[in-house]
């Protein structure tokens, strides 16, 4: 990894605070005023991805772990929420409609607790980080890193999607779960409730940005970057970099789970195609575009990618694949620090006058 392209020190606290305040104003005041309900709904969907991307920024940008399996944690949160919404729709004692189709109207016993809203919320908040802690502990403690880590996390997402498709009786299989009517008692079709969903997503995103700003300027944030750039040295200094990375990985999973859970009421469907290996890599795209190591890069990038995806697939179906492909090639190849590094690069060029190559600092493995 080229260290010079990724930021090593955090921006001053006042700049972080100002940026978060600006985003909050944009989300809570400007967006509802200028966007049609339809566009606002779409923006809420991008915000769900942005919440996931903030976590990816922590794990990948700051921690150097290419997390290609975020779809798993996204999916755990999403399916837990979907179970609850299906049961809510079915009413007390009822059985979700799709089970009549695939499972002969039989509901497995372990679905029963999902009737309870608080239980569902607990699962959403606890299960993804718990799974991440187990997987991460096994992988990171054995010093599996770099390419191995990326491939394993991707395989995890693939296995998860195949499992979801296979367990059609409880997951709706390939088609996933859809046709939700209410969200904790609120009618999902009423405009004021759609606005409320948008506001919930905005609040979560702003809070997660605050969390990141605090983490990045803390000792933990410095240790995480140190673990990314010089793992051996961190180890020699008496800190186990695996622990530091593990915490980042678990927080990233926590955010992915919440993003997934909000995705379900906002979009109205969750299916294996939202969580599989390709979708998991797709979640990376936003963070890459915005700037993986910057505080606001991943979130802003995720919204931009979501916006581009909607626009492009509205006008030219199929063009999205080309665009997403080209995005990866150009951003990673030419601008590994994402758009966030653009200002720095331009400034650097102006200072040096001659467009010399950036110094390639290789990281000792």
């Amino acid at each position, binding site marked *: 990894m080229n260290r010079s392209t990724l930021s090593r020190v955090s921006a001053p606290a006042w700049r972080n605070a100002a940026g978060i305040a600006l985003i909050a104003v944009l989300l809570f005041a400007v967006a509802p005023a200028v966007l049609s309900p339809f566009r606002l709904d779409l923006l809420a969907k991008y915000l769900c991805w942005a919440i996931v991307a903030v976590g990816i920024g922590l794990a990948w940008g700051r921690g150097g772990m290419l997390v290609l399996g975020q779809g798993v944690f996204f999916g755990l949160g999403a399916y837990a929420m979907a179970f609850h919404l299906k049961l809510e729709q079915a009413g007390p004692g009822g059985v979700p409609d799709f089970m009549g189709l695939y499972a002969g109207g039989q509901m497995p016993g372990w679905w029963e607790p999902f009737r309870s809203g608080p239980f569902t919320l607990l699962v959403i908040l606890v299960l993804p980080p718990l799974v991440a802690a187990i997987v991460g502990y096994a992988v990171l403690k054995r010093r599996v890193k770099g390419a191995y880590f990326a491939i*394993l996390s991707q395989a995890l997402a693939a296995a998860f999607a195949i499992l979801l498709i*296979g367990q059609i009786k409880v997951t709706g299989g390939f088609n996933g779960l859809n046709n939700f009517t209410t969200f904790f008692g609120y009618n999902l079709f009423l405009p004021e409730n759609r606005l409320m969903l948008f506001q919930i997503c905005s609040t979560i995103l702003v809070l997660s940005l605050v969390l990141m700003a605090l983490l990045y300027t803390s000792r933990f944030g410095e240790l995480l970057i140190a673990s990314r750039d010089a793992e051996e040295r961190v180890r020699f200094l008496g800190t186990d970099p695996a622990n530091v990375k593990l915490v980042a990985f678990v927080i990233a999973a926590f955010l992915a789970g919440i993003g997934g859970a909000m995705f379900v009421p906002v979009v109205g469907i969750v299916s294996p195609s939202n969580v599989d290996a390709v979708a998991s890599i797709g979640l990376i795209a936003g963070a890459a575009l915005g700037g993986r190591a910057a505080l606001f890069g991943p979130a802003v990038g995720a919204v931009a990618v979501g916006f581009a995806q909607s626009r492009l697939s509205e006008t030219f179906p199929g063009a999205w694949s080309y665009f997403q492909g080209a995005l990866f090639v150009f951003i990673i190849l030419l601008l590994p620090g994402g758009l966030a590094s653009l200002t720095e690069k331009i400034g650097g060029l102006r200072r040096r006058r001659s467009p010399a190559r950036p110094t390639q600092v290789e990281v000792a493995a």
Partner: protein
Amino acid sequence: MDAFLTPLFTGISIGSVLLLAALGLTLTFGQMGVINMAHGEFIMAGAYTAFLVQAIVPDDLSLLVALPVGFVVGGLMGLLLEATVIRWMYHRPLDTLLVTFGVGLILQQLARDIFGAPAKQVRSPGWLSGQVDILGYQWPVSRLFITALALVAVGLLTAALTYSSLGRSIRATVQNRDLAETLGVSTRRADRTTFFIGSGLAGIAGVVLTLVGSTGPNLGTSYIIDVFLVVVAGGIGQIRGTVIAAFGLGIVQSFLVQATNGSVAKALIFVLIFLFLQVRPQGLFAVRTRSLV
């Protein structure tokens, strides 16, 4: 007896396909620390090559023509990828993964636009249609052909790497790039050759895959992760590790499928590889001379 032999033979033939696909990947992965996600799309290109060759060459010969053509098509795509993108990204293995994933997305959509989304069927030649009796079990000749082909590919590749001067320069580059260069080995040439051969093998894997399934734009995606797992479990850049891991994965998977079902087996396979990497984080055989970031 059947309960044992059937999954064993199925596993061997799954393993052969995995082996062909993984052989090229382990070569390019081990050589340059480059993770080529577009390898799956090179496999797809090989399969479409078989489909196109069939339109020109009579059925009985088309497979034999498609194999070398598929090798060249895959190889050239690999060369092109190396020359345009990958050569700028040495020592950034994680980034090559994302870049080549992007290339893969583009190639998939290209295939969808050229050939259409529905899967295409390639007819197997007549001389592969029979069955052979092995241990009282009727085994399709086409499956045996795939296994034989995979083993021949392993043999040829091993021989080329061991005995030819080009193979020696490739191995020298893998083991210590800087030292090899100091000794006058053209590492650029070694890189390009490796990529040509590795991607060419993907093309061959694609041609062979048309014997067992249909050809669609998502063909590569459905194989690439299994293939990566084979490479990781076998130890990156290790041909013998890849051979053992491919057959091992294929056989274990088909036994698991028999014991449970397809989707549970897939998840279990992941858990097994995961546990295996707990014991041997670097795969079956580790490259000790260079470490991947």
